């Protein structure tokens, strides 16, 4: 572990060193080629004067609301599609179709329906994550070993108990994978949408960097976006996923 960590740190030190070395050569003006020191300075001031913090909070608020709604709707739809054949054959095909569509393609429609507003942004986040969550739940339900359901029924489980006590727990590993994928799609969609719409948030900070020709800011915001993505994915979802898989005996 520590050996791996040393390798990692060394790799990044060399990378940053090379980058700073290139910058010292002054081949390009700073507004085109940012420097590590410049980026670091921007990061620090960004957090100091709270513009980055506000950006993060606004983006997080959007994603939490949108993603939360997605979870509620997606879970309900997915659980039903997985078990009701007619729904699967109808709504299921629709979901598969929409899943193939990058969610940013919804933007024109969202702008016409909701205008340049917070709602349009939410719509993009929801549409970005909804289908992955539905498919995760749906796959999970479809792959519940039939013997679990039969066993529960012989012990007297009714349809609702089957859902709450057997199908959902049995499908949980797949549901969590759906959540995880849904999150990463939601995060990407939100960043794309924020780029195109003035409304603070991290994407907006990126665009501001471009407009001010401040590549240091662009890189600094990119780093923030990457870190948030990694933290949520690795520290939250991967942990939950591993725990569930371990407990379910899937590892």
């Amino acid at each position, binding site marked *: 572990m520590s050996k791996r960590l040393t390798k990692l740190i060394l790799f990044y030190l060399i990378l940053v060193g090379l980058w700073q070395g290139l910058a010292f050569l002054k081949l390009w003006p700073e507004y085109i080629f940012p420097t590590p020191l410049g980026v670091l300075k921007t990061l620090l001031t960004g957090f100091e004067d709270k513009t980055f913090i506000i950006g993060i909070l606004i983006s997080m608020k959007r994603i939490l609301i949108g993603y939360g709604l997605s979870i509620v709707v997606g879970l309900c739809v997915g659980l039903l599609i997985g078990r009701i054949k007619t729904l699967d054959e109808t709504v299921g095909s629709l979901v598969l179709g929409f899943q193939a569509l990058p969610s940013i393609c919804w933007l024109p429609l969202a702008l016409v329906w909701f205008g340049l507003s917070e709602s349009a942004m939410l719509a993009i986040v929801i549409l970005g994550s909804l289908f992955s969550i539905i498919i995760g739940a749906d796959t999970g339900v479809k792959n519940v070993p039939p013997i679990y359901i*039969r*066993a529960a029924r012989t*012990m007297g489980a009714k349809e609702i108990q089957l859902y709450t006590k057997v199908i959902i*727990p049995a499908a*949980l590993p797949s549901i969590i994978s759906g959540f995880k994928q849904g999150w990463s799609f939601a995060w990407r969609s939100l960043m794309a949408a924020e780029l195109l719409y003035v409304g603070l948030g991290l994407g907006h900070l990126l665009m501001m960097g471009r407009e001010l020709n401040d590549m240091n800011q662009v890189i600094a915001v990119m780093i923030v976006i990457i870190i948030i993505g990694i933290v949520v994915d690795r520290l939250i979802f991967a942990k939950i996923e591993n725990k569930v898989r371990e407990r379910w*005996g899937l590892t």
Partner: protein
Amino acid sequence: MSKVVHKSGQTEELKNLDKLKPNKIIDVRGAVCPHPLNLIRDSIISLKDNEILQAVCDHEPTAKENAPRFCTRRGYPLQVIEQNGVWQIFIQKIEKTEPRLRVLNVSKVFKTNHGRVTAIDNVDLTIQEGEFVCIVGPSGCGKSTLLNLIAGLDKPTQGEIWSNGNRVTGPGSERVVVFQEGALFPWLTVMQNVEFGLKLRQVPLEIRRTLALDYLKLVGLDEKFHNSFIHQLSGGMKQRVALARALVMEPAILLMDEPFAALDVYTRETLQEELQNIWTESHKTIVFVTHNVQEAILLGDRVIVFARNPGRIKAEYEIDITRPRKIDHPEVFLNTKWITDDIKEELEEPAYKADTREVVYK
């Protein structure tokens, strides 16, 4: 003319013989061992209610033999008369008590992409309270199908199933199934698995715990595994948990579908022994499916042999060996040999032979 009244425990005497007219007469003189009286028993089964069978036999039927035992179990009145070295047995088929389980002319046809498959055809079966019945037969003869129908997990294409006087229309916890493997819930601990059915019934936690502990003890699962997850157990321990999970529901009938088939020989023997002990103590009605004749004889009061294509009852045997039976008991061995010889062609018929019947040659 001398009269030999059959002196077996509860068997009722069939009275007023001179006024009754037999509906069917069979002669089993000269029938070959091992089970000449099986023929009589099969004839009784084919009788309608209240009909009378007269059987002619060349030795005195003892209480332990198949047919008399069969009548005793069901409470059919019986009378035996000796005449010049020939024994006449009269039996009337009167159902005294409602049997625990009745399978009436049940057939099940599955529709598949390749056409219709008759999994079981016209199966008739009556099981009394407290009986341990083993169903044995080759792979694909419809044993599991029948068990699923009894459990109510599937609906018969034709016929009816009655459990204690109630028509079976769906699954219910008075008919719990123990499956071969893989039916325990991996997201629950051993204890939670055993409590599962009680929780569905909304039994309060304290009572649930106590009952679960009792039954885990009964099936002999070491206490240190009570909070383990299922994937941490060995195959034998898993089946113990599965058995406890079923027994804790106190089902009127315990249905078991090859519960020990996936275990190694030693574990299987231990579990067979424990199941026997549990049955001897509780006299629960058990229907036990297996493809192993020896296992069926070791465990069952009655062994029902299934044949294939279509799945149907081929023969039935009463097993009289005293309990507890050991797998190496000579009588278990002998009975296994007899029955195996009896049904040899059925057991040896390879699966492909059955399949080729459906192939159309162009």
